[in-house]
């Protein structure tokens, strides 16, 4: 597996997982997305880096349909999703994680995942059968928990989880929607060193099953995982290329890598 993971599949001809063209979004005078062009190839991890306030989360929100762009088009697997609601985009295989975790705090870890499985199955207008006795649903939820290292915490309330565990659960919930394109909004933010390594391993394991757009500040993680990197500064993509190209790009060094970054 790792042999494949080292090198991006060179499939320029294949339909990209995600193709963004000319995306514009402004809030009053602030331009959060300034004619963004971005392509995520099937199976690759495409990292999106940039200083705070560059518009990375705004981009993810537009991709998910939570925000409406002012101009531009978004295509997933060759088909335009501009007119689709967030729910329909999830049906098309998009899923996101949140930088500031957005979970269901009164539910257990298992139920957070089970709800996502239930929504994917589409059998939610059921008013009579008790959901707690639905063994199939429980078992399915537990497979995603096992995959993200949370199996032993299944009965814990989300409110009692550590920050790192909540980040893992964000990933588990996103995976429970069976995505083909995963938008990860700073999955390492706030994690300790060991937890970061664990998260990197998990994402590496998903490589080639799911295409990923990885927004991340942790450069070690980006360099360890990414096939290609795009750099977003003040809403504009100033560079896009392989890891080595980006590392050596003088513009990127001054605009981003050289700049002291205080995290979020």
């Amino acid at each position, binding site marked *: 597996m790792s042999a494949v993971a080292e090198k991006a599949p060179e499939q320029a001809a294949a339909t990209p997982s995600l193709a963004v063209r000319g995306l514009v979004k402004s809030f009053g005078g602030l331009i959060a997305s300034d004619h963004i062009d971005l392509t995520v190839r099937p199976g690759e991890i495409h990292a999106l880096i940039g200083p705070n306030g560059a518009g990375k989360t705004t981009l993810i929100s537009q991709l998910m349909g*939570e925000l409406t762009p002012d101009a531009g088009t978004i295509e997933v697997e060759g088909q335009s999703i501009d007119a689709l609601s967030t729910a329909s985009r*999830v049906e098309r295989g998009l899923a996101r994680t949140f930088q500031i975790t957005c979970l269901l705090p009164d*539910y257990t870890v298992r139920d957070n995942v089970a*709800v*996502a499985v*239930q*929504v994917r199955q589409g059998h*939610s207008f*059921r008013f009579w059968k008790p959901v707690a006795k639905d063994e199939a649903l429980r078992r399915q939820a537990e497979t995603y928990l096992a995959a993200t290292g949370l199996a032993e915490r299944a009965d814990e309330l989300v409110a009692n989880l550590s920050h790192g565990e909540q980040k893992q659960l964000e990933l588990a919930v996103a995976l429970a929607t069976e995505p083909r394109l995963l938008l990860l909004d700073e999955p390492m933010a706030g994690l300790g060193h060991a937890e970061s390594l664990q998260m990197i391993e998990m994402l590496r394991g998903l490589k080639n099953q799911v295409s990923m757009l990885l927004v991340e500040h942790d450069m070690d993680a980006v360099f360890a995982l990414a096939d290609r990197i795009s750099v977003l500064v003040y809403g504009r993509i100033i560079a896009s290329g392989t890891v080595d190209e980006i590392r050596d790009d003088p513009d990127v060094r001054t605009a981003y890598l050289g700049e002291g970054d205080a995290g979020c």
Partner: protein
Amino acid sequence: MAHSYMRPVLLIALLVALIALPSVAQASGYNAVTSLATRVLIYGIAAASLNFVLGYGGMVSFGHAAFFGIGGYVVGILYQHFALEEPLLGLIPGTNQMLITLPAALLVSGILAAAIGALSLRTGGVQFIMITLALAQMLFFLFVSLKTYGGDDGLIIRRTNELPGLNMRDKHTIYYVCLAVTVAFFALLYRLVHSRFAQILVGLRQSERRMAAIGLSPYRYKLVAFIISGMGCGLAGALMANFLRYASPDMLHWTKSGEFMVMVILGGVGTLFGPFIGAAVFIVLESLLASWTEHWQLGLGLILLLVVLYTQGGVQAVFSRLPGRR
């Protein structure tokens, strides 16, 4: 897990007590207790219905009196057309049969809830509270100005609706009918709040954003929950009109929506038994305090304040913290 087998035992004990209540009340000379208990059951249904959207769904509706009132008016209007022997709009014959009026009240309040919900659920937060309030008040003023159906004075129903084989003039019979409806309602509600649908609804209360991100369109689920809740309140209104033999614009007034909300908060938001406990506490306090002073709302307000500040989850939370439970 001491309470897993305690719970059915307690439920059966409660049911036996409720069944015995009219006879005990009569034997001890407190006949008024039966009427009081009937009102508690009816208001309990209304409060539990409101709680379904408010406590489970996180939708703070300030207009549930609309559904309660419309349920009452369905009974009243059908009775008037029955008594005058002229069909409603020249088409629908009036009736005094409860087996028809209760389903009719459910249907009409469900349609009204669909309309009000479809409009108001496009908003959220404070706007949702104000729009439900405004729409319910519109209905209030509509019925105040409807002279055909009594206007301001309301609609007197000379006799309680009939049920085959029962003497509905007897207060005890009405109590037992209300008890049977309440038990059936509670059983349905119990299944409902443990269903897949409720799992989604409670998820929406916690984070609509999260639910959208896993692929759910919140609007449809919230609307269906709102309709179910409106129908429950309509059922309560229909029972109340039968019990009081009277339907009036007061049933639709915003203060009634406020009373339902107070019952839910008193008893415990988002719990199964809470609204029924809250209704009982509210009705009993109202009668007790009103017998001492006409400013009974002052006393009730103080008690509500204490409950909100100190119980962390209403009266039912106090019960569940008692030794031996949970």
